[in-house]
């Protein structure tokens, strides 16, 4: 291939993608990075050593709001200047939205949320969830230009491909932004990153009321783990903060242990726990699909099992 262009609004995602690309420069070609918008010149410095041979910079005010139509116009032009035929983005919400816009502008094939990226026989192979998370579709993009947004955490770079990149100020002719940002309000700082927890206690609609979360929190404390939940408990009821929600539209977790309590096991949820080493399920319905995915299952009422388990763990700790 002729070259890779890496872009994300998240600088650490850029570094990972650039470093991974540099590891595969034999097949993918030289690596370029685009840094756009506010303070791009300064931010570009940190990408010089990440594996990119060229860092393209543009600070046009129109790029500041990161409107997808303007950013995709910028990336299409830079890809041309860099002679890149693969554009790698990170699959944040903004990144997915941008990837598809850019792909359409370039009339190209796009994988908007790749959970696997690899090279086989000189071809780029991607994997993504399909059929609502039931399957993984492994694909090859057939168009000359390819756009892939990679789920954060999917690839790692060795750092050994690092070169001292040249900073280039990109000449761009950009459209006027039509979407205006009125304000950007940070969400309350995240208190937890369940994607990186070793032990999770995940509760679903088997929980009858918010007050009963105390039981779940107590068990999590005994396990030295974190509380997690299914979507209804966060998005619908607002009982648990969204950052603790697991699934296709939430976090994907790889803990050592997850206890799944009163969770039916719908695939949109369970895609987020596939990476767990050990899965324990407690459900009052012996036919709940979660048992098919579990290593250990207890058919029972979580209101009986959870306090008993917490007690047993406490005693274990005391011994």
């Amino acid at each position, binding site marked *: 291939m002729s070259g890779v262009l890496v872009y994300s609004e998240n600088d650490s995602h850029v570094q990972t993608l650039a470093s991974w690309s540099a590891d595969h420069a034999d097949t993918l070609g030289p690596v370029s990075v685009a840094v756009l918008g506010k303070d791009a010149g300064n931010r570009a410095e940190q990408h010089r050593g990440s594996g990119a041979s060229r860092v393209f910079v543009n600070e046009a005010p129109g790029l500041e709001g990161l409107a997808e139509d303007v950013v995709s116009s910028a990336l299409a032009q830079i890809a041309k200047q860099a002679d890149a035929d693969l554009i790698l983005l990170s699959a*944040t*919400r903004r990144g997915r939205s941008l990837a598809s*816009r850019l792909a359409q502008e370039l009339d190209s094939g796009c994988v908007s949320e790749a959970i696997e990226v690899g090279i086989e026989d000189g071809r780029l192979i991607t994997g993504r969830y399909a059929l609502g998370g039931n399957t993984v579709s492994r*694909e090859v993009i057939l168009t000359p230009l390819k756009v892939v947004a990679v789920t954060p955490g999917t690839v790692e770079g060795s750092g050994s491909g690092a070169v001292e990149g040249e900073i280039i100020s990109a000449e761009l002719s950009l459209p006027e932004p039509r979407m205006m940002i009125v304000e950007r309000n940070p*969400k309350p700082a995240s208190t937890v990153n369940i994607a990186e927890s070793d032990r999770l206690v995940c509760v679903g609609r088997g929980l009858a009321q918010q007050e009963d979360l105390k039981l779940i929190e107590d068990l999590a404390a005994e396990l*030295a783990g974190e509380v997690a939940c299914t979507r209804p408990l966060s998005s619908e009821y607002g009982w648990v903060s969204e950052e603790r929600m697991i699934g296709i539209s939430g976090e994907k977790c790889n803990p050592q242990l997850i206890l799944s309590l009163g969770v039916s096991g719908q695939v949109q949820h369970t895609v987020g726990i596939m990476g767990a080493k050990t899965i324990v399920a407690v459900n009052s319905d012996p036919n709940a699909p979660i*048992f098919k995915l579990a*290593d250990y299952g*207890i058919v029972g009422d979580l209101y009986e099992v959870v306090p008993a388990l917490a007690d047993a763990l406490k005693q274990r700790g005391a011994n």
Partner: protein
Amino acid sequence: MKIVVCMKQVVDLAQLRFKSDGRTPVLEGLPMILSAFEKHALEEAVRIKEAQADVHVIALSAGSTKLKETIKEALAIGADEAALVIDPAIKDTDVSGSSRLLAGAIEAIGEVDLVLTGEGSDDEYSGQIPSRVAARLGWPQITTVRELALAGEKRLRAVRDMENSLEVVECDLPAVVSVTSELNTPRLPPLTAILKAGRKPTQEWTLTELGINADEIGGKAIQIEVLSNLAPEQERKNEMLEGTLEEQIDALLRALEHEGVLA
């Protein structure tokens, strides 16, 4: 004002089964339903219609002949009209082709002010359609919206849900907006409305009627080759713990201890 809600017909994945290898999905014979996120888009459109005069809501879908039944739910919930693109060629197309069909239909409907979609469809969940349709129409796109307000006929204000921030944005109409499930709680259609839904007008196009050539959405226009589409391999112990609660917990703790997954 005219609002088009893009609604996809998908197989009911809750009923998905696998072949005896446990990995190959069997799609034949599954019932078709409307994908879930779009119901939030439709609910929003219907609420806008209820709140102000002269709003016309059109449910747009591209798919198989079964759509005629499936789309009745959208009409029952409150869409004024259905617009369907039905053509045998559609089953072999990809997101690029689907976006071509939807953009073509939106142009055929004409004078559309706002296109609403889900943030992702139940089956693909690629989120590519809203961006691709917007790009094809040359309109701005505002994706993953959890709050939406119209500021007069020609402008909208929305709150986008990004991972770490909420962004308040504004843009002129026409625009394409994709919505998340936090936006609202979709209503269930009353039974009587479902019965009456068949009487609402439905426009229907084939590819040719939209002026689209089958080559544009199939054959060489296909952008993605699927190598395999299988359930991930799963090796789980599937051990059901028996006995009294005390015995079950005892056995569980011993097993977890043995696996070294406790703190």
